[in-house]
């Protein structure tokens, strides 16, 4: 390869890898932003307070035939970190970071190509709990008429909410705490909420 060919090659290489940044492409192996590059403006911060023992038990499942059982990460054969995301994030309607930031502050041209080529905003369009239920039934080969199919999954989780003032002062020991139960069914997901503590 001659030097002029190498010059063209380098230009093409960076056109692809850096062009993706200007086009806001976030499809591996191209990416425009680090995982934590986006911060949403909000007056409060709500985070999950996990419970390792509860998570180890897994989802409380109800089958169409009325049978009840727990579905742990070992039952569905998923790594612990992924199971944590399924249990603590997807079950409670939280998508992956990519979805939350994909359409944030898009330039007009990028908005255009995303809508034309990719489709609706996943952060608004996706139903993560339903996808989880579908995925679990497919994992066990349980079709829509199978009496052993799961018709309900439950996940239990506490949440802590901090005000901006608490975060700014570093006072993280006195959040507003809430216990939520996600009840996932084929027709939709609803959440039971109860405030806990003082």
């Amino acid at each position, binding site marked *: 390869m001659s030097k002029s060919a190498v010059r063209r090659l380098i230009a093409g290489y960076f056109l692809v890898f850096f062009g993706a*940044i200007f086009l806001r492409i976030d499809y*591996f192996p191209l*990416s*425009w932003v680090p995982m934590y590059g986006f911060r949403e403006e909000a007056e409060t911060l709500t985070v999950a307070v996990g419970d390792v023992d509860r998570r180890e038990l897994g989802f409380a499942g109800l089958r169409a035939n009325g049978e009840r059982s727990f579905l742990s990460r070992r039952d569905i*054969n998923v*790594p612990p970190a992924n199971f944590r995301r399924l249990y603590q994030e997807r079950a409670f309607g939280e998508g*992956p970071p*990519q979805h939350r930031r994909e359409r944030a502050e898009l330039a007009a041209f990028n908005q255009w190509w995303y809508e034309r080529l990719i489709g609706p905003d996943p952060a608004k369009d996706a139903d993560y709990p339903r996808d989880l239920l579908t995925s679990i039934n497919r994992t066990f080969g349980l079709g829509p008429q199978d009496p052993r199919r799961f018709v309900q999954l439950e996940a239990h989780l506490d949440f802590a909410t901090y005000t901006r003032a608490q975060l*700014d002062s570093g006072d*993280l020991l006195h959040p507003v705490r809430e216990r939520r139960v996600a009840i996932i069914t084929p027709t939709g997901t609803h959440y039971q909420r109860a405030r806990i503590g003082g």
Partner: protein
Amino acid sequence: MADYHPSHRSAVDRFFFDWFSGETLGAVRLYFGIGLALYVLTQYPQLLILDQLGTEFHYTLPIWYFWQLGIDHNVPWLILPTLLATFVACLFFAFGKWTKPAIIAILIGIFYLKGVRDSFSGDVHHREVPIIAILTLFFLSKCERVWSLDARRKGFSPIEDWEGSWPIRAMQIYIVMFYFWALVAKLRVSGLFWFEGGGRVQETLVGRALRDGFGADGNVVNLSLGWELAQRPDLIFTFGIFVFLFELLIPLLLFVKDWRIRLVILAGAAFFHFSNFMLMNVQFYFYPFVFVAFFDMAKVHRWLKGKLRLRGVEAPSEITGD
């Protein structure tokens, strides 16, 4: 260890073609390949704890190319052979045996293993992004012709210095700009709000520390150091300023000729990645192995060999206590 060879061509040509010698590319490939073999092992161990003959989970959010290829569930028994094959391919690449096919094998292995890891729940991690970009440059270069088993066996003629220099310089640009674009992205979508107060970092620290909850002793189960830091927004803000300056100024590293300065700056970057791991479990801790692209590894290799040989000679006297 001066590794700058000026000439009279255009600035762009001098930048790409005059910086390193041909053999440096082979040495960078050797050390990058060994580092990559270890990096691969650090990225996918969580997949090995799965029951290899157990349930085949149907992905909730398959990565885009799995989606396109119709790969919608995990095949657990495929993970271990793929990981081993990828590891071996890294060593073949490092030592220059079937170098280009080895690169293709590594790419396939990483795409598959990453796809599996990220498709269970849909979080697409970025740890492999720079690796793919750098491997692409190795593939486009003549890296297989120097410092390789194939070159020794087949008697390849040595490559010219400019042929060894441009891929390394392109790698350097990619690596430094990876940090710079991270700053641009933050400012583009979140502005200075990303840094305000404890900033996004504090939010991540809190979320990460609490995600496994509290133990019986009242302390967080994991990442207690991150939890402590999360309660010091002033300190986080100070770190944030350092990160801001680092990401803003890191492109200047491309023009630093003194290897000692490069070493200090990149050691700082390595410390940054290690801290992120300790505080937030961000699994980039072994990523700094890519920094071998910033040094004349042929000279480093000779220096290391000299040190090891010297130690070998000295060893008997150390044992006898003379």
